[in-house]
């Protein structure tokens, strides 16, 4: 109770209104005390001077007593903090130049970190949106020829019935589809899914119903589920869509339900159809243990660990291998947590970016610490005076920490603003294969991260100068000219800080230069065809194209129409363009003369092309011939192989006339009639793999991309091509109308993303380091003005002083570079995976980066060095 009462009394003491009155009262009281005491002393026979002196001594100092009373009167911690804040803000306002640099430095560091952290937070740290998502597992099939392959439908059914570890297993199968209704055609990503998928993912329809398990079988109902996005965008969120008919690949489906916002599993699916597939297809799928097309996902039972489930699935696949040796021998299930499966590939890259941003932060912090140290040194006199007037040391130190925390908070706010401002442009260049893109935003956790980061910076980097101030010597601080002796009490610490930030800047710059080099080299990679002046457009055949001849007729018609268009040089069709990854086909092949054992199967990619494809793409024919318009049957036609295939499979022999058998297909042999140049199919960065070309007119796939080589300006033929396609069939959705140049350029988007961010970080890092060097040197020059004046007065040449100061900068830069080279060697392993055609320790790049650093350091020294040479000896000597 008395404690509470006293707390209230002290809180009231905080109020400014009565402060002056209380202050006067205290002064009066002490005054009366002294008078009483003095009088008594006089009565004892002291002279008046001695009487007063003794009274003062006995009291222990009027100001000191007042100060203790003040602390007791209110809550000193709170009050002085408020005071510190007010004073700090005033100081910062007064030194606007210093404040601007410090806040800007911090803003860059915190902004960079917040921006990258917001990506990491959404992509890597936040759990997937599905309930209890930790128990969702993706299951792949590892076959002897391919790791991480999709699973056959037959194997999926066996897995589902035999495993003991999963609550449920579901299979999905993604496709591009033509959606057609009164609004016309649109290409959408569709997926067939078993009914168990939705309950497993914890999804309830916002409208209508989900699939029933009967929908997994032959003779299913023709119903679809819509994504929330497409329901809103295409149907205006109208609930009346339920029960309406839409055409998906020309088959009528009834809309049965709408799924909640944000649900697009698998991938970016917008429309789900039951796994019933088509009767014909499903029946062949049911028994086919060779077509690996199903993406399998499962939810672990509670209490079952991943290791348990793996052991359990190993038992299941061993059983299947014994029962179906021809197809399932040596096949295993590979289990990967869904989250890991989605984001695992992006993890390293993002953490490297985070590391780079962290380096920017470190550099900014070093700058800030250095700035604060030198400012602290410049304020020694202020502290000495305050100390002499009764200010205690911890108060002074706390004042300094408060100032730097204030700075840090201002920097943090500016940084968050910067992160907000740059977010849109970062999102614009983020590669679209990064998962969970739509979830990226600045949430509470990101803001908390930025806040904690700035607070830690403020406290962490306010401590050094505060410590310096607290132990500074009052006497020397008060002496005139004391700035020479007391000046920079810690030059070595500051030099170390600056060398450290040069090292960080060098590492970032080196990283950026290496990525630049890789990028330039990637641009020089020959794709194996001539991408200039080619426009392409794709379509998928709906179910109305039941027979091969219908597809062939359609393709021939479009090609013929386009060929007649003025300005068009060549037209052809292909199942898939190079560098497109969705639906890329590959599989095991067996070449004649080798045993039929699956384990010796070789892997090859497949592309189905029309006869004019190689000419239109300008892929060189190395030997033999290409296809003609009318040859072979659907299963025993001729093939053309790539140079790599020819070299790998028939080293030292003539591949023409040799035979290849497709293990996924049938026992028929196909004869090699031609060899063409290699094409970069998967990526410009990867070596070409064996590729087999099949004639489209014998074996049309269910999708085709038209390739049109024009005389000039291919862009303008996009519309012509789309029109030509619609002239033949206006129910088809034409998609991916783009030039080959564009396609190649887009394939480098991930590289571009890392290059740009690294480049930005590298640039900021070097700029900050230069500011740091400038700050250090110019502070040093300011302190030594008198010394330079004397030197000049006794005959030193300006040139010599210039050289001396530049030499200092150079030594600093070289020390930093030595550290930086060590650091970059240590970190080289991390970045190696992001480079192409250049080693992380490439000496040339190293030299260039080092040269840039040295140049910037010297440039930063030059301005203060010039100032030093212009010191007027007279003024310098007269100073003070």
């Amino acid at each position, binding site marked *: 109770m008395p404690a509470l009462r006293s707390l209230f009394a002290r809180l009231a003491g905080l109020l400014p209104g009565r402060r002056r009155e209380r202050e006067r009262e205290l002064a009066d009281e002490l005054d009366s005390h002294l008078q009483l005491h003095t009088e008594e002393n006089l009565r004892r026979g002291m002279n008046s001077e001695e009487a007063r002196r003794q009274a003062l001594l006995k009291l222990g100092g009027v100001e*000191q007593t007042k100060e203790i009373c003040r602390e*007791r*009167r209110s809550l000193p911690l709170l009050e002085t903090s408020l005071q510190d804040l007010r004073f700090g803000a005033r100081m910062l306002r007064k030194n606007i130049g210093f404040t601007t640099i410090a806040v800007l430095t911090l803003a860059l560091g915190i902004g960079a970190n917040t921006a990258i952290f917001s990506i990491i937070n959404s992509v890597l740290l936040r759990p997937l949106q599905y309930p209890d998502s930790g128990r969702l597992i993706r299951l792949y099939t590892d076959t002897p020829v391919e790791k991480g392959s999709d699973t056959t439908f037959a194997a999926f059914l066996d897995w589902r019935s035999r495993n003991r570890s999963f609550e449920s297993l579901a299979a999905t199968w993604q496709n591009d589809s033509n959606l057609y209704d009164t609004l016309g055609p649109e290409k959408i990503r569709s997926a067939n899914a078993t009914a168990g998928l939705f309950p497993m993912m914890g999804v309830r329809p916002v409208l209508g119903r989900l699939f029933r398990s009967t929908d997994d079988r032959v003779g299913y109902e023709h119903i679809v589920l819509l994504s929330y996005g497409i329901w809103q965008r295409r149907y205006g969120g109208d609930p009346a869509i339920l029960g309406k008919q839409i055409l998906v690949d020309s088959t009528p489906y009834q809309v049965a339900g709408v799924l909640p916002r944000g649900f697009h599993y698998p991938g970016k699916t917008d429309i789900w159809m039951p796994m019933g597939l088509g009767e014909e297809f499903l029946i062949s799928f049911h028994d086919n243990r060779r077509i690996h097309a199903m993406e399998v996902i499962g939810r672990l039972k509670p209490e079952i660990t991943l290791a348990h489930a793996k052991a359990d699935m190993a038992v299941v696949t061993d059983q299947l291998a014994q029962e179906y040796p021809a197809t399932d021998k040596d096949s295993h299930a590979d289990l990967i947590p869904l989250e890991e499966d989605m984001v695992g590939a992006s993890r390293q890259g993002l953490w490297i970016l985070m590391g780079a941003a962290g380096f920017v932060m470190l550099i900014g912090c070093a700058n800030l610490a250095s700035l604060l140290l030198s400012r602290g040194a410049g304020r020694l006199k202020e502290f000495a005076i305050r100390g002499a007037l009764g200010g205690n040391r911890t108060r002074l130190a706390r004042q300094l920490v408060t100032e730097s925390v204030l700075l840090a908070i201002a920097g943090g706010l500016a940084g968050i603003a910067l992160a907000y401002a740059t977010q849109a442009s970062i999102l614009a260049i983020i590669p679209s294969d990064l998962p969970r893109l739509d979830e990226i935003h600045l949430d509470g956790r990101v803001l908390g991260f930025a806040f904690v980061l700035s607070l830690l910076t403020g406290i962490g980097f306010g401590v050094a100068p505060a410590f310096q101030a607290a132990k500074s010597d009052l006497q020397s601080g008060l002496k005139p000219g004391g700035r020479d002796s007391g000046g920079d009490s810690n030059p070595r610490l500051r030099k170390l800080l600056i060398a450290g930030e040069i090292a960080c800047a060098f590492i970032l710059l080196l990283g950026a230069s290496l990525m630049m080099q890789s990028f330039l080299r990637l641009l020089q990679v020959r794709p194996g065809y001539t991408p200039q002046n080619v426009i392409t457009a794709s379509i998928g055949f709906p179910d109305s194209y039941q027979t091969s001849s219908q597809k062939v007729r359609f393709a021939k018609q479009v090609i013929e129409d386009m060929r007649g268009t003025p300005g068009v040089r060549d037209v052809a069709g292909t199942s898939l363009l190079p560098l497109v990854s969705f639906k890329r086909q590959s599989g095991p092949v067996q070449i004649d003369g080798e045993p039929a054992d699956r384990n010796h199967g070789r892997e090859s990619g497949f592309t189905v092309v029309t006869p004019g494809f190689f000419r239109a793409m300008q892929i060189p024919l190395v030997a033999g011939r290409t296809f003609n318009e009318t040859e072979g049957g659907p299963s025993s036609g001729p093939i053309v192989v790539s140079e790599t295939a020819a070299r790998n499979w028939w080293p030292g022999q003539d591949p023409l006339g040799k035979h290849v058998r497709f293990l996924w297909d049938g026992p028929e042999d196909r004869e090699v009639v031609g060899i063409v140049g290699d094409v970069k199919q998967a990526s410009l960065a990867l070596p070409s793999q064996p590729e087999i070309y099949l004639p489209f007119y014998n074996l049309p796939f269910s999708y085709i991309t038209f390739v049109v080589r024009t005389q000039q300006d291919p862009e303008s033929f996009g519309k012509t091509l789309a029109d030509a396609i619609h002239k033949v069939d206006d129910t088809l959705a034409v998609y991916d109308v783009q030039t080959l140049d564009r396609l190649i350029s887009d394939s480098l988007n991930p590289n571009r993303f890392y290059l740009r961010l690294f480049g930005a970080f590298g640039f900021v890092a070097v700029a900050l380091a230069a500011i740091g060097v400038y700050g250090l040197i110019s502070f040093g020059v300011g302190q030594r003005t008198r010394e330079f004046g004397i030197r000049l007065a006794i005959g030193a040449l300006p040139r010599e002083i210039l050289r001396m100061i530049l030499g200092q900068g150079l030594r600093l830069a070289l020390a930093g570079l030595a550290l930086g080279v060590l650091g970059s060697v240590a970190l080289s392993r991390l970045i190696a995976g992001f480079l192409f055609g250049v080693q992380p320790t490439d000496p040339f790049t190293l030299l260039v980066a080092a040269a840039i650093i040295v140049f910037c350091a010297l440039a930063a020294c030059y301005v203060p060095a010039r100032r030093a040479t212009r010191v007027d000896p007279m003024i310098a000597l007269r100073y003070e």
Partner: protein
Amino acid sequence: MTDKKDVWQGTLALMVLKTLQSMGPLHGYGIARRIEQTSGDLLAVNYGTLYPALLKLEQEGYVSSEWGVSDNNRKAKYYKLTRAGRKQLQTEEREWEQTTEILARFLSPERES
């Protein structure tokens, strides 16, 4: 000035309260002098430390203060005990006696038993 003990924290408040009880309303200087005299000049009170102690007691409501005039016509701030202060003094006196009694037994155990 040689052998005087510093007044240790906490006991000062008790001394102040006791002084006010026995002397009635008194100003700061008077309290300080009285404490010194009562202790037989064995205690050296740094007079400055008295004022925060008085402030604390006032905040806790054990003493109240008002300006008055001293014997020799000086303006001075007089402190007097409140009712809460009187009660507090009783409690503290009791506690203090207990403490000293216990300590006394420890320090001269041979007198026991």
